[in-house]
């Protein structure tokens, strides 16, 4: 009997891990893994590992781990420096990957082959990518690593004359597409992304309302629902405990300032990436700027970038993808599906394990 093949596209993000499978299932969870702190909490949960939203909800009873930072596995830049912690990060990331695959594909059976494409930040190092290969061993039968903005472009079928901006929690990845695999010169990664907004917002709110009690999680949740950069619009208020009493606090200006803090770097990166492109094709690039990732949902960001582009580059048309959360995973899935079987076999036979066996 022929083996059943399942294809998955995975976006292992700093904030969320997103997966799309060709059996029609897709899912996402916050990239958190929790381990019960003691025997009592282990008894309470009835399991040794808690993932995603559930882990966040019960974080007081758990040792909470976030295996990804700035889009890559923690300590994967210099694994030798923090060997023990790197090992732990790999283990946690591996469990996270196993869990999301289980969510869409169920328990793996012997006659099922799972192939996957995992997205990595645009300028992830070789070490970062190898860490992704490492965690997928034994979970995915075949695996490919692809640049995250490239997978977004692939999913949208915009492989030529397009500039993809993937605004995540840890990084903002910019990638110009011109019909080939983007090289390092075609990509820019900046680190002022969603997490940076949270930090600035937290600082500003703490400065304004010194008496309020708040955490970065509360701030993040509020930001995800209300983020905006435009001048006009309603005032936004957050309910925060002040001396234990829930109090309505106006944070309109603080939220706007925090969201705006990432814009200058993005527009500067756009300017660089357009200005260094072949002048004959620059107009095409300016015409097709695509915003993806959770950060693309900031109200007014599209207009703000267009206005900056008009100032610095003379013109610019920006649009948002329809499904910002799933854009990367969807693209990775399509890439996975398009890859011919012989290419997968070639890759499988190239792995050290296969080489050793042969």
């Amino acid at each position, binding site marked *: 009997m022929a083996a059943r093949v399942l294809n998955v596209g995975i976006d292992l993000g700093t904030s969320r891990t997103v997966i799309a499978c060709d059996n029609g299932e897709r899912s996402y969870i916050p990239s958190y893994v929790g381990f019960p702190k003691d025997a009592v909490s282990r008894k309470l949960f009835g399991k040794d590992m808690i993932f995603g939203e559930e882990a966040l909800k019960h974080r007081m009873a758990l040792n909470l781990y976030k295996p990804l930072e700035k889009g890559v596995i923690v300590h994967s830049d210099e694994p030798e420096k923090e060997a023990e912690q790197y090992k732990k990060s790999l283990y946690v990331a591996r469990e996270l990957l196993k869990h999301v695959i289980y969510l869409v594909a169920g328990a793996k059976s012997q006659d099922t082959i799972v192939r996957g494409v995992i997205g990595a930040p645009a300028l992830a190092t070789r070490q970062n990518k190898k860490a992704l290969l490492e965690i997928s061993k034994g979970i995915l039968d075949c695996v490919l690593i692809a640049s995250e903005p490239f997978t977004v472009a692939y999913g949208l079928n915009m492989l030529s004359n397009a500039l993809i901006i993937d605004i995540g929690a840890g990084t903002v990845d910019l990638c110009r597409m011109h019909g080939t695999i983007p090289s390092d010169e075609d990509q820019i990664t900046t680190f002022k992304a969603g997490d940076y907004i949270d930090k600035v917002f937290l600082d500003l709110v703490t400065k304004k309302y010194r008496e309020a009690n708040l955490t970065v999680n509360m701030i993040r949740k509020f930001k995800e629902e209300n983020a905006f950069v435009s001048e006009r619009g309603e005032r936004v208020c957050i309910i925060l405990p002040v001396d234990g009493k829930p109090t309505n606090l106006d944070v309109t200006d603080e939220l706007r300032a925090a969201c705006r803090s990432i814009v200058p770097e993005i527009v500067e990166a756009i300017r660089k990436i357009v200005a260094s492109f072949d002048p004959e094709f620059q107009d095409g690039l300016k015409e097709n700027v695509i915003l993806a990732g959770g950060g693309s949902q900031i109200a007014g960001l599209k207009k703000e970038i267009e206005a900056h582009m008009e100032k610095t580059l003379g013109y610019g048309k920006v649009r948002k993808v329809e499904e910002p959360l799933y854009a990367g995973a969807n693209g990775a899935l399509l890439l996975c599906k398009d890859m011919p079987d012989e290419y997968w076999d070639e890759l499988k036979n190239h792995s*050290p394990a296969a080489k050793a066996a042969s």
Partner: protein
Amino acid sequence: MRCLSRGLGAIVEAGKYTCATVEYTGLVSYGALKFGGRVVAHSFRIVTAPVARGMAIPFVGIKKVTLKVFGRKNYFDEKFESVEEKLARIAERLASIENRGIVVRGTAVPTKVPRRIDLGRQALLRQIVEANKSLIDG
């Protein structure tokens, strides 16, 4: 004769005085009328201007609304166009997803469809494979 001429002179003088009197009276009346008219007009303006302005407010409002509805026709056109574009893109993506045999949630196992990948895309996929092979080697 002398008496007669004196009489005539007196009549002429009297006539002249009469004329001057009438003329002066006319001028005075004109001046009074003009001044009165000005005062009335000014007062009228003071009284009526706010009233007229007040009466015009609803019409200005109507004009603004009308402009909003009809004058910003382009805005709606743009919105419709962008929605149409989005729908077209979604339809295109759905077609491409179906072509690849990705199934909708809840339906049976993913179907195996014959791949129709053009040479350009094959070359692109080959490049990705090579990059990954060098990653495994490195």
